[in-house]
């Protein structure tokens, strides 16, 4: 009699069916959710999305290709990340004092941010004095570098320097090492701003030579470091600038890989061996507040790089396959309004980077949206890392989100999205050609605009900016650190005396040799830069010589 009921009892609705029914009844109108890379996000992920079926091939184990779970067998359980806080302000003695303090608090490596005047290729006596030392340390000579790193053992401390082409800061560091009797093969660290392509695309704060010259100097720099400073990472491929300029997380990763391929192809064309240069390639990314998206992106990135190095370049050395990256919490996500909220934002960003398996981390100070960071803000940023590592125990388990239906699905989707943007560049003839044509710049500008529209419309909440606003007590804000004007005047006077005391012949000979190298492809331009630094040439003199010989790289006005 009750036949239909019996049939229903015999085939009960599955848990998933029941959930789908209850979900749609209770949610009402479901809002469409997309992450910053444009991927649609479902309310629930199950074994239907990801069932671990190809675990060995797609996920595997830490330290084994495809590296989804990490590039080392031990990951953070063995060695945690390098705490590399960016610092730089005022004169070399100011910098040295700040560096010593931050090392005492737990920072484990040197980072050096030079003044914007240095970035732009000028000496301190060539720019508006008001701007000197406000955003970085004023380093123009080997003496300045020696003073910056006073008391530091160059043979044991890794030094990362924001040192765009033509890499004068590394030249000053090598000259300092020679003075102190430290062998160059003991020097370790990274040329953080060696990626001229990212400067052309997204960050116009750096001195640059016109594209063909910039390309050549980078090749010379990689070649020189491989031969003479083997522990140095000459190539840091930078996605951070592009993401700060507006690229989505997937686009930033895609354009960064496209840049890395361009540079690797250029090294190959010079006759270099992939297993010689690839192990010294490192990457640098932004970590936005889009928590799971960032974690999935870094996992996908490791997988793509392991595949590219092995299949495209035939790299055999496992070190060549490793996607080593430094990451910085995103300054664009920070707000001027209610600035202490930025501590929460930075914490979430840092967690995403750590769970994503980074090798080196800079956490932003909460006051970066107000000014160059204060010492107070920088101290909290370092403490945030210490808390996450030692109080919250984020490092106990390797790739703790691996196997999550959501994270694994999203990792696959981010990989697809990254590869899609890489194809756009490939079809344009590679990154060098795509950048020369302005294609990448235009895409990034459009993405920046789209995200701004999300914020302006209120679809993307920004606490304190478009929601939860309060009247603020402005006096509670920290005040901007500024270099002591008297110390800066003394620094300029001492610099003028330094220049006057040099042997004019030696300086001219070094500049002539540099000009010759710039015009002779058989010579190494970076070797000539190092020789010029040792001969006492200043940063501005070296840059001016190359600018004259190789042409200046102007910015395209693309709106």
């Amino acid at each position, binding site marked *: 009699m009750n036949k239909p009921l019996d049939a229903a009892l015999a085939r009960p609705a599955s848990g998933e069916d029941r959930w789908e029914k209850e979900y749609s009844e209770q949610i009402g109108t479901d809002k469409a959710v997309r992450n910053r890379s444009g991927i649609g996000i479902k309310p629930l992920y199950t074994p239907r999305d990801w069932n671990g079926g190809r675990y060995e091939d797609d996920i595997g184990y830490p330290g084994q290709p495809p590296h989804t779970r990490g590039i080392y067998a031990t990951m953070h359980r063995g060695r945690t990340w390098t705490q590399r806080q960016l610092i730089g302000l005022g004169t070399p003695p100011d910098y040295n004092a700040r560096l010593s303090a931050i090392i005492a608090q737990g920072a484990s490596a040197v980072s050096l941010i030079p003044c*914007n*005047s240095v*970035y*732009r290729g000028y000496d301190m006596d060539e*720019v*508006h004095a*008001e*701007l000197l030392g*406000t*955003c970085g340390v004023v380093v123009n000579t080997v003496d300045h570098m020696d003073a910056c790193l006073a008391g530091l053992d160059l043979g044991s401390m890794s030094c990362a320097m924001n040192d765009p082409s033509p890499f004068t800061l590394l030249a000053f560091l090598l000259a300092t090492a020679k003075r102190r009797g430290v062998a160059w093969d003991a020097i370790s660290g990274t040329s953080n701003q060696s990626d001229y392509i990212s400067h052309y695309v997204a*960050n*116009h*704060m*750096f001195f640059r030579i016109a594209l063909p010259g910039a390309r050549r100097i980078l090749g010379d720099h990689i070649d020189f470091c491989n031969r003479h400073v083997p522990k140095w990472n000459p190539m840091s491929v930078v996605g951070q600038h592009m993401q*700060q*300029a*507006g690229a989505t997380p997937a686009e930033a990763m895609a354009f960064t890989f496209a840049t890395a391929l361009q540079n690797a192809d250029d090294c190959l064309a010079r006759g270099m061996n992939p297993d010689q240069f690839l192990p010294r390639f490192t990457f640098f990314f932004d970590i936005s507040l889009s928590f799971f998206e960032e974690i999935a992106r870094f996992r996908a990135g490791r997988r793509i790089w392991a595949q590219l190095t092995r299949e495209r370049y035939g790299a055999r050395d496992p070190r060549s396959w490793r996607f080593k990256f430094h990451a910085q919490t995103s300054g*664009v996500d920070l*707000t*001027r*309004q209610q600035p202490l909220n930025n501590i929460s934002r930075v914490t979430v960003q840092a967690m995403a980077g750590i769970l994503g398996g980074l090798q080196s981390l800079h956490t932003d100070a909460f006051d970066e*949206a*107000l*000014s*160059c960071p204060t010492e107070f803000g920088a101290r909290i940023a370092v403490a945030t890392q210490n808390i996450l590592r030692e109080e919250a125990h984020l490092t106990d388990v390797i790739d703790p989100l691996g196997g999550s239906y959501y994270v694994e699905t999203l990792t696959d989707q981010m990989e697809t999205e990254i590869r899609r943007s890489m194809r756009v560049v490939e079809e344009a003839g590679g990154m060098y050609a795509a950048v020369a044509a302005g294609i990448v710049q235009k895409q990034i*500008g459009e993405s*920046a*605009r789209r995200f*701004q529209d999300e914020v*302006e419309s209120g679809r993307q909440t*920004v606490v*304190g*900016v*478009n929601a939860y606003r309060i009247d603020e007590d*402005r006096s509670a*804000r920290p*005040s*901007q650190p500024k270099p002591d004007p008297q110390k800066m005047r003394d620094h300029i006077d001492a610099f003028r005396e330094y220049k006057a005391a040099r042997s004019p012949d030696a300086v001219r000979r070094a500049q002539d040799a540099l000009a010759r190298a710039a015009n002779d492809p058989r010579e190494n331009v970076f070797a000539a830069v190092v020789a010029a630094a040792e001969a006492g040439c200043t940063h501005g003199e070296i840059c001016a010589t190359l600018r004259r010989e190789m042409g200046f790289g*102007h*910015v*395209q*006005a*693309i*709106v």
Partner: protein
Amino acid sequence: MDIRPKVLVTKIGLDGHDRGSRIVAAHLRDAGMEVIYTPPWQEIPVVVKLATEEDVDVIGISSLATDHLIVPKLMAALRAAGLEDVAVIVGGIVPDEDEEMLLAAGVARVFHPGSALDDISSYIRDITARIRAQRLSERRENA
């Protein structure tokens, strides 16, 4: 009266972070204004020359890394060129104490991170209306 402000969006000094200036320039253009946009690193005399030749109502200076500290030099150069009626606005990261310094130097307004684009464009419309009314009445007085 339908006002179509003419705005120069630029960056002076050493820094080149141009996300802000590009977004603002594109917004003002889409809002129907005439926008002259330059890449970063402009010299002060170049900005004065452009403002003169293009006869702009407003100059927008974007500053993310302390370049606002030389805006007082720009204000002096504009006055010396007889352009005291051009409104200069500054957008970007400007600490409170520096904002006071900029306003004292004659800057019309400072827009901080988080400013709504519509607020920026409606401010520019208002100030342009005031500037043009002032120019008109001065011309009448002179005539």
